[in-house]
């Protein structure tokens, strides 16, 4: 047995364990789906690791073991430094959960076993084979990742089985608990928070936290958040495949359901919108078993075509059971009326945009059926807080009003924001925007459309960035818009200076997709 070769093996193992942190971090962030991890891997091939492996293999082949050991020592040091650096600067770091610990444990086990076999086996060929395998799996850490994932899978299945059964037991002992399932391609998280806020006027409510919408996320919420005094559990259900929603429903057995929309999301796994539709309506099937009602957003074009009388429909159309009407926007945010029972209730909310109003309407209708009074709904809706920089209404200079939509970089969202601005009737409407970026081929068209919309809805236009704003300026020039009311500023600061000339208490300013100044030229 060669001492240098043993040293090489140990160094390769150390190197492998450290570079594994990055791989496991990505596996974890891809919810332990090897397929999703693979697609990340495809676009992030660790070329340096491959190079290191090839060099190491060559040295091994020519039996330059002392040189290989020296090379791997350097590799190990580089990998340790890299691993620490990556974890330090990652926004979403690797979380050392039980599962990650088990994955690391199995990697240590594999490496140790191979090194032991190498040193103990009498047969030269077999011994060398062990070395070859170890170099392969350790230096190419994604290989270890796949092997460990496979090895620990049966244990993980046992664990999830236990957690799922425990969650079922907790829910069974909680006989008076009402469970509400929320799903949809868009808007389910917002609707969940709105519904939770309204229901909390009357009940002790627990909802799944921010992004816990998978089966195991729901199970964890049940096991960790549900209190004996909890009366309502609002459960967001996410889906990427057929049967995902059914799996969650089989655990939580929802009494009510709410479907916010069906759209072309996650088509890479769903294959067709039809499958998306089927999956979302697994929630409706589960609710039917408990004779509860299912609320469906009638304004979602994909949905309305497939509805029947069994559903409670909400939205903006007058034929719907819960409908938002007489919508207007002003200093207090959005105002609209909805019919609860026989009573027409006027709601005011700081959330802007038609989608928000529809979400509120659905949540208010469901809360009303659960016994929350119109007065309580009014108060809860008035106290809803907008997400920061997402159509956020705030005071601005000279008593004017600002709609801060700085984080919106989505073309449809931008157009909708300009429409919201347009509906502030009787006020002077101003927009400051640098337009949209990073849209590739579509960029010119999207900005041109945004320009047309601003010309149609605004009184004063301030674009930011001479070159950037060209498509929008072109668009405005094709319209009747008064050119003396269109400005192009060099920077956001300059844009605000121009704005200050017009701002008064009857002005509303939309800041759309405000970018850092270094983007502009």
């Amino acid at each position, binding site marked *: 047995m060669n001492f240098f070769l043993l040293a090489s093996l140990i160094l390769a193992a150390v190197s492998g364990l450290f570079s594994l942190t990055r791989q496991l971090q990505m596996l974890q962030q891809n919810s332990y789906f090897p397929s999703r991890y693979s697609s990340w891997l495809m676009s992030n091939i660790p070329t340096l690791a491959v190079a290191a492996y090839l060099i190491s293999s060559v040295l091994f082949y020519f039996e330059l073991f002392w040189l290989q050991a020296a090379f791997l020592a350097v590799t190990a040091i580089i990998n340790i430094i890299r691993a620490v650096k990556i974890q330090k600067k990652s926004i979403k770091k690797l979380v050392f959960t039980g599962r990650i610990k088990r994955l690391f444990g199995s990697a240590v086990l594999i490496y140790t076993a191979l090194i032991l076999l190498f040193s103990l086996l009498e047969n030269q060929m077999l011994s060398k084979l062990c070395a070859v395998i170890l170099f392969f799996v350790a230096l190419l850490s994604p290989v270890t990742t796949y092997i460990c994932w496979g090895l620990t899978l049966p244990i993980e299945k046992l664990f999830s089985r236990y957690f799922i059964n425990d969650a079922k037991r*907790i829910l069974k*002992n*909680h006989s008076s608990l009402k469970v509400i399932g929320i799903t949809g391609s868009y808007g389910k998280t917002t609707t969940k928070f709105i519904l939770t*806020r309204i229901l*909390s*006027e009357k009940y*002790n*409510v627990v909802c799944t936290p921010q992004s816990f919408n998978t089966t195991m996320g729901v199970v964890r919420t049940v096991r960790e958040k*549900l*209190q*004996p*005094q909890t009366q309502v559990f609002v459960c967001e259900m996410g889906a990427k495949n057929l049967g995902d929603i059914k799996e969650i429903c089989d655990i939580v057995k929802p009494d009510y359901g709410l479907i916010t929309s069906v759209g072309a999301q996650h088509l890479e796994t769903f294959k067709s919108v039809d499958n998306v539709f089927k999956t979302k309506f697994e929630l409706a099937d589960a609710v039917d078993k408990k004779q509860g009602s299912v609320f469906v957003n009638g304004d979602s074009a994909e949905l309305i075509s497939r509805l029947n009388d069994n559903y409670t429909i909400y939205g903006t159309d007058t034929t719907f059971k819960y409908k938002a009407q007489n919508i207007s926007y002003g200093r207090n945010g959005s105002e609209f009326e909805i019919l609860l029972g026989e009573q027409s209730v006027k709601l005011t909310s700081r959330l802007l945009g038609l989608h928000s109003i529809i979400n509120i309407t659905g949540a208010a209708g469901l809360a009303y059926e659960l016994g929350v009074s119109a007065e309580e709904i009014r108060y809860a809706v008035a*106290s809803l807080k907008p997400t920061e920089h997402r159509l956020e209404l705030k005071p601005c200079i000279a008593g004017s009003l600002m709609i801060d939509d700085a984080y919106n970089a989505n073309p449809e969202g931008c157009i909708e924001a300009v429409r919201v601005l347009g509906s502030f009737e009787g006020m002077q409407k101003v927009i400051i925007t640098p337009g949209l970026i990073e849209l590739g081929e579509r960029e010119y068209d999207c900005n041109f459309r945004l320009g047309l919309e601003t010309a149609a809805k605004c009184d004063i236009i301030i674009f930011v960035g001479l070159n950037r704003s060209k498509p929008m300026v072109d668009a405005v020039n094709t319209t009747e818009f008064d050119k003396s009311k269109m400005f192009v500023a060099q920077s956001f600061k300059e844009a605000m200076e121009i704005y200050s000339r017009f701002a008064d208490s009857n002005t509303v300013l939309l800041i759309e997709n405000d970018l850092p100044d270094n983007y502009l030229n």
Partner: protein
Amino acid sequence: MKTNVAVFYGCRSVEHEVSIISAVQAMAAIDRSKYDITPVYVTKDGEMYTGDCLFTIEEYRNLPELLKKCSKVNFTRENGSVIMKHENSGLFSKKKSVKIDVAFPVVHGTNCEDGTIQGFFEYLGLPYVGCDIISSAVGMEKAMFKDVLKGAGLPVLDCVCFRAREYVSDKQAVTEKIIQKIGFPLIVKPVNLGSSVGITKVKTENELDDAIMLALSFADKILVEHAVTAIREINCSVLGDADSCIASVCEEPFMNDDILSYEDKYLGNSKGGQSKGMASLGRKIPADLTEEKSEEIRKLACDIFKALGACGVVRIDFIIDTETDTVYANEINTIPGSLAFYLWEATGTPYRELCDRLIELAFRRQRNRENITYTIDTNILSGVSFGTKGSKGAKL
């Protein structure tokens, strides 16, 4: 899964025993099919005990024996929950700990009812039944209570307040002020005690000094107010929170003495030694009042409850000057003896349901608070480099 309700009672208070009676009654009334009950008996030394024997009133005759059967506990916060830990446990066994979901204080008097125990719950982050710190504290301090009511335009009797040192250093001046502003007959009260302890009615000047000295032995601050001679005492209970509350029927306690003494309130009908607290006191329910007067008092009771920002169940004691037919608010009990359940039974709410409502209100307040942001999740200090010696980092 049942909600675990910890009932706190006893405490370092002159009304320690009254609290025991009220708490044992309450624990018997709480619905066991919905709630688990954890009794937390706080001794006069402020130590906390729990045990199954605490449910039976007879056990309290021999306190040292009782405590031997119980185990000493303390409370901590772990992973977002409040945990009650047993301090003494077997040599090898792990310390027993129980999760508490809500606290139900049934305590009377200073050092507990006055915001002290509420502060303890707030500090733990434990939802609790009844008034919060401010309303409890103001409710206990009779002078401040009057000020708050005056500020809200609600009727109270005028009073003179002074401190012990002020009186001792210049009795003459204080006496003159009292005579000039209030006149005889008058009532001398320590500002911060409930249950009539240390209260004397004074008819002439030469009784005044004794009355004040007695009151001073209970409190540092004294309140003197006019004694209404043609008087009826009417009590009314209020249930709810500052957003919505309802008043019970009114009661009229019978007075054996000129004013209701501590013995009347809690030891009345106690020949057999079997005290049943406020519920057994001689009283007429509902009070013999005109519909109009009764409504006036009940409305007033709700207004006072809201002015104070109270929560849970309280009892407000009123005085009617029968000569002028004027109603005055006299005092508030933020945790009334026997939780005023006898008034609610007469109003049509059984004691069990009353306890249910009280626990619900505790969770409601908790929810309202959670809807307001209290902490900022990011650690502001994480981005600051502290100016240590030699470094040039920004200093705070």
